[in-house]
Structures are given as C-alpha cells and as structure tokens.
C-alpha cells in the first residue's frame, strides 16, 4: 500500500443559503437564486476537486458540537432529512452519504494516541448536521466520494482560543498520520465562515441580494487582510494573527476547522487560490483552495 497523502485543502464555508440559492432536488424550499458569486466560486472549486480524484473528503463542521471529545462519523451509510434549526425556511435537505469508516477509525485512534478524547459515532439513526451537509453538497453535489465527518469539540470556546486551537493542531496532525497510514488520497474541507457578525433579521425575500452586504466595515477589512495574506502564501502570519482576528471579527474559524486543516497540511506557506468571496446575512465567506503539490515544489 502506498503512503496516503493530503492532496489539497479547501476553505469551504457552509451557509445553507448557498444550497437554497442553487435549488438542488434534495432541498425542499425553492428560490430564485441569490449569492451567485459564492455559488460560482464553489463551481470553480468543484472543477478543481474533480482533478484531484480523491478517495475521500474529510470535513470538520462547527455545527456538530460534542462536549466530550472529538467524534467521527462511523456508520457506513447515513441518510435522512437535515433541517437547519436556524434557517428551516431555507434548508430542508434529504441526504444520503457514504462514510470511509476505516479512515474515520484510524483518525479516531490517532487522535486518542495523541492524548485527545476521541470517539466513533456508531448510531445509524444519527442526523448529520447541516454544516457538514452544506459543505459537502457545495463541493461535490454528486455525493459519490466517501467522506469522514468530524465534530467540533468547541475546545476554543471552552478553554480559550489559544489553548483550544492547540487541540485542533493536535487533531490535524493525527488526521494526517491516519491518512498516510491508510494509504488514502484525501482532500480536507474546513467548513468555516470568516467574519461572523450577522444581521439579526432576514429580508422578506431571503435571496433579495439588494439586502446583502458585509455586516460591518471592520469585519470586511479583517477578511480582506486575512485573504490577502493567504493568497500570498503567508500562512505563518495568518496564524499569528488568528486569535486577534477571531476576537475582533467574531470569526467562525474559532471553532477549529481552519486550524485542523492547516495543521494536517503542515501549515504550508503556499499561495491559496481564492475562488470567490461573498457575504451571507452579513457574514464573510471565502472559498479557497491549497494545492499540496505546490507545497512539494516549494
């Protein structure tokens, strides 16, 4: 068996509005579109994902919250209807997905060996969270690549940003070892929004884009600063700034997916490709890609 490797990582945020705007058959509500720049960004990301031909997609979602440890989906086939508790008017999605249980178990074991509390989720009636589903739908609507779903332990909220993100760093390197040892060709998905202050009311027509703009100028400036650094491959600087970004922009990267992904990739100082940026009820969302073959050349 060849040593597995991480082919790429994507920043792949999960506003359910993007699924709603696309009108896939799996989602009940119908829209007249909306959030096109972000949806088109995902179209470009989909094309690039196709080129990697990965065996598996690993996704870390902030909306599967587990207080006791980091959990991994561990049932081969999961299906059901996922209704977003915050935007049930927009997202009522019938999902069916296949889990790479062997890799999930390897991730879980590596995380335990690294000192983290880790657990497999074996309940076949488990309802997969809307963050996981939205990210996966937006990056690969065919649902034909097995996945590994990872919960958010929310340690950065419980322990504090720095200490909590250190755990995500450990989880990331554990994930890399698991990918390597199982011989998988893997793509990582960090399901995170950037600045996360949002409007408290929805427009009467949710997809009325005349109502969509950044919630606040400071958050927008933060997003542009972070994206520009990422585009230039200045990863180290981003991680130095991350706690301040989180505090000042209420950035959702606090939940850990972004740190997990970069840790698994070895924090490469390579340029990220920005597929697009847009706001969703005022929050800042970027779809970005890091091609790890560039890291090998760097």
């Amino acid at each position, binding site marked *: 068996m060849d040593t597995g490797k991480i082919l790429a990582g994507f920043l792949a945020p999960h506003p359910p509005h993007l699924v709603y705007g696309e009108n896939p058959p799996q989602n009940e509500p119908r829209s007249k579109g909306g959030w096109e720049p972000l949806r088109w960004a995902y179209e470009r990301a989909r094309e690039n994902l196709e080129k990697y031909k990965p065996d598996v997609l690993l996704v870390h979602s902030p909306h599967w919250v587990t*207080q006791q440890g980091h959990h991994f989906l561990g049932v081969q086939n999961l299906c059901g209807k996922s209704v977003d508790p915050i935007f049930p008017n927009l997202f009522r999605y019938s999902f069916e997905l296949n889990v790479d249980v062997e890799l999930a178990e390897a991730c879980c074991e590596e995380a335990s060996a690294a000192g983290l509390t880790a657990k497999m989720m074996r309940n076949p009636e488990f*309802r997969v969270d809307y963050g996981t589903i939205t990210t996966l739908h937006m990056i690969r609507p065919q649902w034909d690549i097995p996945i590994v779903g990872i919960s958010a332990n929310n340690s950065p909220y419980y322990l504090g940003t720095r200490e909590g993100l250190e755990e995500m760093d450990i989880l990331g390197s554990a994930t890399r070892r698991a990918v390597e040892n199982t011989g998988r060709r893997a793509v990582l998905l960090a399901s995170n929004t950037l600045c996360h202050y949002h409007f408290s009311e929805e427009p009467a027509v949710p997809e009325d884009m005349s109502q969509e703009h950044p919630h606040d100028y400071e958050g927008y400036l933060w997003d542009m600063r972070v994206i520009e650094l990422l585009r230039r491959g200045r990863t180290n600087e981003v991680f130095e700034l991350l706690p301040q970004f989180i505090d000042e922009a209420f950035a959702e990267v606090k939940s850990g997916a972004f740190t997990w992904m970069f840790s698994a990739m070895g924090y490469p100082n390579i340029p990220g490709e920005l597929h697009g940026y847009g706001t969703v009820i005022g929050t800042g969302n970027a779809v970005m890609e890091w091609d790890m073959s560039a890291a090998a050349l760097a």
Partner: protein
Amino acid sequence: MALETLSWSGTCRLQRWHEIDMSVVSAFLVPGSPLPRIQGGNPPWDAMAKALSAAGDVLASTDPDSIVVYSTQWIAVLDQLWQTREQVAGRHVDENWHEFGVLEYDMAIDVELATACIEESSSIGVKSKAVNYDGFPIDTGTIVADSFLNRIRKPVVVTSNNVYHDMAVTESIGQLVAKSAREQRKDIAVVAVGGLSGAFFRQEIIPEDDRIFSEAYDSANRKMLDLICSGNCQKAMAFVPEYNEQASPEMGFKHFGFVSGALGHKYSKAEVHHYGPLYGSGGAVIEFQV
C-alpha cells in the same frame, strides 16, 4: 386586574400584571441533559431521573390545559421561534451522547396558544416566528423534559432561546406566555429547561465518579438554590449576575428568567427535588410553589 407599565433595563417596555386569576398552575426548572433519560439506571443520574419523574407527578396533579417548555438548547439567532406544527413526533439521537440510543418523542402542540404568543410578541419589542416544518430538529432538552414531565400527554407550547435576548427580554417572553394563556383562559404548567454551573468534564468519566466540577461551582449553585427556595424572587434574580460570574451557568441562567417572568416574579417558595452533577455541570429539579 391592575396594570402598570415598567421600564425594563432599557431593552424593552413591558407590562406587569398583578393578577388574582393566575394562569400558571405549576412551574419547574429542570436540566436538559439526556443522561437521566438514557442512562437513568446509573448513579448518580438515577436520582435526577427519579426527581424528574416526581416533578412530573406534581405537574400532573395540577392538571394544566397546556405545558409551556422553554429550552436553552433550542438555539435561535434571528427571531423568537415557536413550534406551530400540530404534532411533532420522531426519533432523536443526541449529538454528543449518541452511543446511548434514541430519544423518541411525540408531542401535540398547542398551536392556538403559540400563535397568540407570536402575535402578541411585538408588544414587548420581540420579533417572533412560527416554526412548522416536517423534520425540524427538536432539541434534546425539550424532548427530555417532555418525556419526564408530560406523562399526562398535554399539549405543549415549545419556544426557543434566542442567544441575543438578554435576561430582561427572556423574562418578558415568560410573562407574555402567561398573559396569553390567561387571555385564552388556559391553565398552564411552565417548564424551563437548563442547567446550573456550566463547567463539565471533557474526558470520559465513570458515572459513579461524577461530581460538580469544583467546590467553588458547587457552593455558587447552593447559594443560588437557597435564594430561589427562599421564595424571594427579586432577591434571587438580583443574584444572577454574580452567579453568572461565579458559575457560568448555561446561557446566563435565562431559563430562571423565563420561569420568573411567567410567574410574574412571584411564588411562595420553591423546592429542590434533587441537585447533582451531570458530567461535572450542575443540574437541579426545582418546583416553584405558585
């Protein structure tokens, strides 16, 4: 019926009614952890399960027309949400305690009362929204509370915890429910679902070893419970900011605000049926004597 208008923390204006004909016939504060339900055979959670069942007996004896459930675990962000589907039923797997199986639920919703609350909420400066969707995820806390306290299968009003609502707004929503029930000439039981001290064990523990996370949290919980039991609602409410500092209870202890508001900030005394740990966090089954 006397009516006075009070200014309330600058966030909203609400109307306080001094009533003789109370609509609230019983009121409870209970924890939302599923452990007493799905691991109720294990000490120390068995004692919590027994206390929850005892609270259910008391609730049944007050024979309400409907039961109002406010759960801190139903997180809302945009509006105050109210369940308005006639019947909500399903099977729920807790996102953290999935290994312990499935929670089944089947609740008839008091749509009439929920709709009145939605319609009236603008009077307290709150925007409300109806939730009527097949497959909407009912939160663990609501399901657990319904399973223990609503064994008489009464219709329920289920409402959310908007994370941006402060204590005062939450109190006013509790008041609004009681007022709406009164206008419909309904007797209601009020069940506020939420925990005491919020620190929990992040690692796996042996259930028998469960305890409140630290002595400091334990003593803050006991002080809060003593004040609640004294029957001096104002005094207990006044301690909440300090309690929040000391014990970081779930959601700033807004669940107590909801039940206090529903009771018009008045009850004769309260009884703690049980107080104990739920994986390090604090939980108590409290019955308010109205």
